[in-house]
């Protein structure tokens, strides 16, 4: 009985993998992505470059371990493409901030802004 279930499940898995539903996945480091950031009144500007050979889709942004809203003209970056993210944030002069950009695969590219160098 259970052996039959195993066969059925394995067939399902093979089908799912073949169709791309349960394929092996690659998340992790955002290789080929770079980001730079700067302060603006009431927020940050972040520029993301895609130096990889793949299209990368930006999904979310955090500032100091907190998801934040952002606006962007484009979220999908073609190879060698770039985009600018605008983040509303009530930053404090002299304090450093870590901004992390998450892609659709969970990979992260991060950048720092603020702190002593921007005071």
């Amino acid at each position, binding site marked *: *009985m*259970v*052996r*039959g*279930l*195993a066969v*059925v*499940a*394995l*067939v*399902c*898995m093979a*089908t*799912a*993998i073949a*169709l*791309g*539903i*349960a*394929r*092996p*996945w690659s*998340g*992790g*480091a*955002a290789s080929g992505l770079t980001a730079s950031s700067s302060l603006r009144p009431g927020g940050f500007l972040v520029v993301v470059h895609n130096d990889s050979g*793949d*299209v*990368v*889709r930006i*999904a*979310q*942004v*955090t500032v100091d*371990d*907190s*998801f*934040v*809203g*952002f*606006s*962007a*003209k*484009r*979220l*999908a*970056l*073609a190879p060698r*493409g770039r*985009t600018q993210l605008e983040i509303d944030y009530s930053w404090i002069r002299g304090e450093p901030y870590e901004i*992390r950009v*998450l*892609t*659709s*695969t*969970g*990979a*992260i590219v991060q950048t720092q802004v603020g702190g002593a160098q921007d005071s």
Partner: protein
Amino acid sequence: MRTTPGEQMPLERMTRRGVLAGLATFVGSGAVARLRPATAAAADGSGSMPGMAMPTPGMKMRSGLGASVDPRVNGFDPTHILRDFDWGKTRRLASGRVLREWEIVAYDKEIEVLPGVRIAAWTYNGRVPGPTLRCREGEALRIHFVNAGSHAHTLHFHGVHRDVMDGVAGIGRGLIDVGDDFVYEFDARPFGLHLYHCHAEPLAEHIQKGLYGAFIIDPKHGRAEADELVMVQNAYDSNFDGDNNIYAVNTVAFHFLNRPIRVQASSLVRIYLVNIVELDPINSFHVHGNFFHRFPTGTSLEPTEYTDTIIQGQAQRDILELRFPYEGKYMFHAHKTEFAELGWMGMFEVV
């Protein structure tokens, strides 16, 4: 089984025929298109994202409030999981005891844990957390386990049982290889709120990828009638740097902030709270505008504490009971506030 938009086929309740039919339904649905890899997305930023409004140039993307994952993408809904108890199938043995049986299939599945962010999960019956298995104290339990995943797995139950049924490598059947199966058998004891998870190594990875679920053993004489909610606190390390960066209850970050849990004023609410977060040593639960009675591990019918905040270590469980005296919206969240702002916050809507 018929499915409608906004609702999903509960894979966790499928029979072996249902597993095939369900996956066939999934494969044949628009989910295939929604699950295409990010690399297939339009380079100009157009195209829809699961659970997210159509991105348009200059649009404002919101995190947390307002942004949700479409439950149809994952095939399960965190709201549905709250009140979804899998009682299995029962029959009475010659001895008069009740035998309760379940079928659990482990397989790989991509899931969306935050709008636009998808991870490669390992699941029991296609959902994370796995089905909430529920039984009564003293019953004989039998769990038919099939490993249809890509790595060796096990089912390890918290409870009192013989070593050969413990689901750890090197004892009894130990690891269940890909394509293999095993039947775990033990008695339902002690009553309380327990846990099951994969115990293959590396343990943190097998758990964090989604192989866990709540396991409830009701006391022989039951508990007072209540609106019962299962909340499994989990987290994800999406870039594999050893730090979690997405936190949730029932898998999808901010889900209950966008879809508050509706409960009745003055009615008893019972929360089965499980902490299965890996990589962080502690987690916590705090409710606004109210206090609750705490029953650690649910193994006593007498509460040990009346509070509004508790701390849980890894794999720790508590049953919490409360009544909301006033209508309105009341937040709940981890009072490790970093976790809260990375997804672990929600709302009760008291009506």
